[in-house]
């Protein structure tokens, strides 16, 4: 099958997903063309909107890159949301306790975020390798524990002076804000974008160019063959959790240091789960993560406009993302089935 032929089911799936999206808009009585125009304009329509989209792109890139690693090792790291949150909490802790100028503080916050996410991920990993608790349930449970911890900190020990409210902690002092580059009249989130792209590059390199990545892929594809080849499989799984968690944790740092400038209960922004959609759509490969993540945050950021302009619930963006992934998965399965039917007609029952 040539590359163009392989793309056909994907394109058909995208077209179908779009059709379903339009149908949904018609059901609720919204104008489809206007809606899609607002989606694009809301995410890429002006310098400040592009900047906002890029700022949202960065944590999604970080989380998705981490997920590529855990998926490569054959793991369902549903705990990614919790890892983002723990990264945010750890970074907030540094911002609140460590004195000093930004060039000391910010690297420490990134490091703390990485460690926070890493520990949370390895915990899910140990529950799997030593407690027989499937990573989906261990991870999910830890997601909610992390969310609870964030809420507790925001309304408890780290509450704003005088008021206990879920709107967040005190704003960080300016040294703990990731600096922006001023151009075209707006600030650009250069550091987060660099961190995001760097993470994709590192993951791509790890899987493409290193022995570690190669062994990880082997463990993910066939743990038993890998064991016979002499690879310590449990250690590699925990390693994948560690890297995935660290990158998710840095996503949490970006959320607190570049976007909210404080800790809020919903600090993860849902980028962990959205990252899973991105990686599923990218077919588990690092190469396609960046454009797909940009496409997805574009939808997410743009859809906030729908509420303001059309009174349409912003969840439309999420609906569109979900339908796209579902249809592309169906398209892929359908083409695989067709291909295998063609090759071995006799083996079909």
């Amino acid at each position, binding site marked *: 099958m040539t590359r163009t032929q392989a793309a056909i089911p994907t394109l058909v799936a995208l077209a179908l997903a779009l059709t379903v999206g339009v149908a949904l808009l018609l059901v609720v009585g919204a104008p489809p063309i206007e809606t899609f125009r607002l989606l694009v304009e809301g995410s890429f329509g002006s310098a400040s909107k592009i900047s906002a989209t890029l700022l949202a792109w960065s944590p999604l890139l970080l989380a998705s890159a981490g997920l590529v690693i855990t998926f490569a090792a054959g793991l369902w790291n549903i705990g990614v949301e919790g890892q983002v949150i723990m990264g945010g909490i750890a970074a907030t802790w540094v911002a609140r306790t460590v004195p000093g100028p930004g060039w000391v503080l910010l690297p420490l916050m990134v490091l703390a975020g990485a460690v926070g996410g890493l520990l949370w991920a390895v915990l899910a990993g140990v529950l799997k390798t030593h407690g027989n608790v499937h990573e989906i349930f261990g991870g999910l449970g830890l997601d909610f524990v992390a969310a609870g911890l964030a809420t507790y900190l925001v309304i408890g020990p780290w509450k704003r002076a005088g008021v206990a409210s879920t709107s967040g902690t005190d704003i960080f002092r300016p040294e703990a804000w990731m600096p922006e580059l001023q151009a075209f009249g707006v600030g650009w989130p250069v550091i987060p974008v660099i961190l995001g792209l760097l993470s994709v590059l590192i993951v791509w390199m790890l899987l493409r*160019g*290193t*022995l*570690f990545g*190669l*062994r990880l*892929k*082997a463990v993910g*594809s*066939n743990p*038993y*063959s*890998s*064991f*016979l*080849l*002499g*690879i*310590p499989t449990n250690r590699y799984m925990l390693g994948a959790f560690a890297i995935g968690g660290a990158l998710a944790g840095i996503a949490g740092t970006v959320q607190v240091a570049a976007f909210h400038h404080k800790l809020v209960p919903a600090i993860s922004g849902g980028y962990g789960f959205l990252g899973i959609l991105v990686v599923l759509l990218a077919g588990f490969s690092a190469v396609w993560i960046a454009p797909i993540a940009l496409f997805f945050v574009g939808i997410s950021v743009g859809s906030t406009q729908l509420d303001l302009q059309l009174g349409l619930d912003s969840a439309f963006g999420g609906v569109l993302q979900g339908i796209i992934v579902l249809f592309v998965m169906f398209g892929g399965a359908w083409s695989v089935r067709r291909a295998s039917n063609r090759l*071995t007609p*006799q*083996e079909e*029952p």
Partner: protein
Amino acid sequence: MALEIRDIHKRFGPVRASDGVTFTVDEGSLHGILGENGAGKSTLMKILSGFYEADSGAVVLDGEVLRLRSPADAIDAGIGMLHQDPLVFLPFTVLDNFALGSPGSVRLDRSAAEAELKRVSGELGFEFDPERLVRDLTVGERQQLSITRLLWLGARVLIFDEPTTGISASQRIQLFDTLRTLAAGGMIVLFVSHKLEEVEALCDSVTVIRRGKVVYEAEMPVTSETLVEKMFGNVFVEEERTAVPLGDVMLRIEGATLSEGTTRIEGLDLEVARSEVVGLAGLEGSGQRTLLRACAGLVQPESGSFTVDGVDLTHASYREHLAAGVHYLPAGRLEEGLVQGISIAEHLVLASDEKAFFVDWKAADTRAGAEIDEYSIKGRPSSVAEELSGGNQQRLLLAMIPDEVRLLLLEHPTRGLDVESTAFVWARLLERREHGTATVFASADLDELLNYSDRIIVFFAGSVFAIRNAAEIDGEELGYLIGGKVRT
């Protein structure tokens, strides 16, 4: 009543598993179906029991052409099959296993089912505790339960697929008595086996299948010579055996008791010399695989000791065995040997002792190119494992064996390969003798065992049945030994 099988054809891709099979079995007959591994016995039986649909041909019972599109059809027609690994539900009780899938009212009347179980099993002389878990039954008892169930459901034709695998000697005697009783009661019993001795002891008539075709039909008794010849074709030994002088002891096993699943080997003593090639013969599941896996450190011995080149590896882990120069090549090339989605070049990197963090892909590709040439692998360095044919997968596995190996353990090294690939694989393996590598391999192919071994160890029912110098025996004698008989 008679069972007629008329011109059954079944293809899997290019393989003709059944190629015009025709024969008839009469009522009250105990009929043997003989053939070596892969001859097409299983496919035929799966067609009879509704698992596969035949491409063409007919199954006729009592003059009526049966439509067998699913096991449900076969059961309705009165054909019951006992699978080699009894298809029971391990965590369920005996009673639930008995009742599962049986017709009747929605409400399950367990006491009625228990009475039926008692009645039918009593007629057969079996005894069950209905509340016991099937997990705790022996393979023989699981078989008895399955027989009871099939008879209760009204089976008139019973197919036994290699039923003596994994059961004890006394259970075998009981099973044979049961089969004789069933046949005497007017049933049709098909006994599928590749064990000569059993077919000779049990059956009234026999059909021999080779390469998907019926090659021989006869009423028993028939001489063993005839059956061996029909099963295996003409066994020939090539004369070009190059002798390499054997060295001192490389592998020493003393008093080893091994147990894995239903296989058990007791008190095994074995010495393999440097440069020696030892072939393990025997029916599938007779203990060869367990021995190989124990030598590799994948099965821990219950007692006894394993020494390789003077180093005690008795309770060493698999990775310690690897480090000591023991290399194991399992039978499942794509399940246990290679990794799907990983290329030839990547496999060679995984197998090498290169420990650099960054992989030098240019060098890896060059090396892969060289190995592809050296081992005549049809593929590119970037070809992934599942794209390769079986023969090329095996060549890749050969290329992945490290240079410094003291003990090489191979499971069916040439299974499914054509003649050319087989010769190639062995040429490469035999080269290693010159560096002192000792080789132990399991095979079901008599030619392979005779051509390439120095000594052949024949397993039968979990113990070493015979040890022979390969140069001193022929295919016929080996066939006897594998069937558990000594030629007199």
